[in-house]
């Protein structure tokens, strides 16, 4: 069935912002274009060859002044558009308290998502309406891009790196998920569905899912296998931070900045420890980017999360 589509639902807070920006820039350009168009028509008619018209030299005023005039005008218009629609935008929104953190792994050619409780999905993502969602994404092979037109959001998903996408769905419904970065043969098959549900529906849905809490066991095994304990174990000689109760705490970095030790932070510390060095420690931790595949990193993170005070 070929339903013609002429509008696109605004299903996130961001979608509004984007549409407003789009319509405004559209209005501005439309005006500019129409003015030019009308002028072209008028000149084309009035000064058609053979038609009598004043073809005398230009009035003095219509020389440098006007030139400088429209140059500055355009410059200011450009700066205005930039300042109004871009300057404020782009920096990721503040993390809301009840933020829902979902892990996304992209691979040729499918999307794997995992909920905090461990529930996993493939080429689909169920989320509750009105609650801020934070996607922590990585790729197992090439670059992909997580694109939800209804949210007007897109973010490339890179191998060995973590990228994030934060949004708040505002509409209940089923929306397209596309892979927007060309990734090989079945790029166009790498699509899925984003299902936005009422919080109760979501609760019951998540409840019905099989839970993958075996993950932190798996992580523990890897932790030994990679010999993380050699440095991080409490009794270790190497001067390395203790990982107990690390999760959720705030860590001060050598740069002086202090960051919240969330999943993304921990994953980054494993994949690219050099990015953020904890204050008072040497940057001796090797990167596990090459050894640990995304799944392993997920597991390790899950394990480190489970290392709460008293726990295990």
């Amino acid at each position: 069935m070929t339903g013609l589509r002429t509008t696109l639902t605004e299903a996130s807070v961001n979608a509004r912002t984007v549409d407003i920006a789009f319509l405004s820039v559209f209005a501005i350009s439309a005006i500019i274009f129409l003015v030019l168009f009308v002028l072209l028509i008028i000149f084309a008619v009035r000064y058609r060859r053979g038609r009598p018209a004043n073809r005398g030299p230009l009035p003095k005023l219509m020389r440098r002044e006007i030139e400088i005039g429209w140059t500055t005008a355009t410059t200011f218009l450009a700066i205005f558009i930039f300042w109004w629609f871009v300057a404020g935008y782009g920096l990721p929104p503040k993390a809301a308290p009840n933020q829902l953190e979902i892990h996304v792994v992209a691979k040729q050619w499918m999307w794997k998502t995992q909920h905090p409780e461990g529930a996993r999905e493939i080429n689909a993502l169920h989320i509750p309406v009105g609650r801020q969602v934070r996607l922590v994404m990585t790729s197992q092979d090439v670059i992909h891009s997580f694109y939800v037109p209804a949210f007007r959001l897109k973010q490339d998903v890179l191998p060995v790196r973590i990228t994030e996408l934060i949004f708040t769905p505002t509409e209940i419904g089923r929306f397209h998920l596309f892979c927007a970065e060309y990734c090989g043969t079945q790029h166009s098959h790498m699509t899925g569905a984003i299902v936005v549900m009422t919080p109760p529906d979501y609760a019951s849905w998540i409840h019905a899912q099989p839970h993958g809490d075996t993950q932190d066991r798996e992580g523990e095994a890897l932790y030994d296998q990679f010999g993380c304990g050699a440095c991080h174990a409490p009794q270790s000689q190497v001067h390395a931070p203790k990982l107990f109760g690390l999760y959720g705490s705030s860590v001060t970095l050598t740069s002086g900045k202090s960051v919240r030790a969330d999943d993304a932070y921990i994953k980054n510390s494993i994949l690219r420890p050099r990015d953020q060095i904890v204050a008072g420690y040497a940057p001796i931790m090797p990167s596990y980017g090459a050894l640990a595949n995304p799944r392993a990193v997920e597991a390790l993170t899950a394990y480190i999360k489970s290392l709460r005070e008293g726990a295990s």
Partner: protein
Amino acid sequence: MTEAAYLQPPPPDYLHDGHTLGSWLFTTDHKRIAILFALSITFFFFIGAVAISIVRLELVTPAGDLVGDDTYNKLFTIHGIVMVWFFLIPSIPATFGNFLLPLMIGARDLAFPRINLLSWYLYVGGAAFTVLTLLIGGVDTGWTFYTPYSTMFSNTAVLTAAMGVFVVGFSSVLTGVNFIATTHTLRTRGMTWFRLPLFVWSMYATSIVMVLATPVLAMTLVLIVAERWLGLPIFDPSRGGDPLLFQHLFWFYSHPAVYIMVLPAMGVASEIIACFARRRLFGYSFMVYALVAIAVIGFFVWGHHMFVSGQSPYANIVFSFLSFMVAVPSAIKVFNWTATLYRGSIAFDAPMLYAFGFLGLFTIGGLTGLFLATVPIDIHVTDTYFVVAHFHYIMVGGSVSAFFGALHFWWPKITGKLYPELWARAAAIAMFIGFNLTFFPQFVMGYLGMPRRYHIYPPEFQVYHVLSTAGAAVLGVAYFMPLFYLIWSFRHGGRASANPWQAQGLEWQTPSPPPHENFIVPPVVSEPYDYHPQEGPTAGGETSA
């Protein structure tokens, strides 16, 4: 040249001195080399066109029922590679630039005729690689060659494709060097910098971009070959490579490259509009500064192709700002062209129709560029058909229209024959209609979320795709018409006088087609675009006041 020149019988024109194949393949005459280029790029245009015709046919239905996934990917990849590097980049500079630059500045030839020939052979060499690529199964990376896909995952002929582009890159560097040196050292007496026709200025600006940007692409391709072929880790993230480095290197070339593709078109438009409006070009010096400004600022906006790549949001903001700045000089040019028409004496021969087409479509393409430069909007529409529409509006609607404009404007000069005006106008109009029908729907479906490089797609987009394909059919026919009536005109067309348009510019002061050494009597240099009936001498044209 001496008085004797008048007494001697006129020397044979460049088409007729020498008829052997060798006299063409080993010529160092810029005019003949221009013809060689013209024939080769036409051939490649049709390769790219056939490829995309199949794509368009495939996209008529949401399901992938005409070709398979891999074939589809190879089709749009070869389309992009061929159209950008083998057609559009050499299109105006290597043909009209080659032919006209020496004529317009009153020189006998380019500064380095043998290097000029060499750059044609390099072009053909690179082209050979591409054809080879096609023979051994094509390449499927998209024209952007993004890593790690191109180096570690694609199992198609990436190497041959990359090498082909690499070689052709050298061709355009040499052309650039040649043009720059020529403009500096071979201007005839009285041809001061600010008397140069804007077409020459546009060639000069283009050449600067070619010389500065192309080597970076060349190096990037070398690195791709090194990683893919020799297994040296350079971009591969799993061996410590930075996944974004390639994109920075690629776009550092490819954004300036888009100005390589449009500046020459701007030059052509300036010549045609001034001539058919019989008006001195409005704000000549501003036009010159604008060209140079575009060329320079164009080097600092590449990051606008990477807004969602994971580069820092601060970088995004900076690149966004610079992209808005690069739009300003283009704006100036658009306004000046329009103002040139004011109080003109406008004739609507085919070249002028193409120039109008260029003006309107380039403006639409450019304005949509502003949408893309606006970060929040780009995050939504990047890698959708909105982008595809944006660049086709500029590259096809703008540059290709200008190319056809130039073809008709200088056809009498190049061949010494007149083309059938009616057919030409019909083609121009058909091209304009077909073009908009093809690409306007793409803006809409792009904003509605239709991703690019998609072989199969959700049914709600079908209507737009059908429209677009219908448009492409019209466009296709329109592109074929000149092929036929121009060949006809070359055979049976009426003889063209030295200056059929009563145009200004030195190239019109020599017979059409010009003799081997360009000028029998040294040309007389006057103020540029000395059309204005009242001011200064006129080269004909009504002065109804």
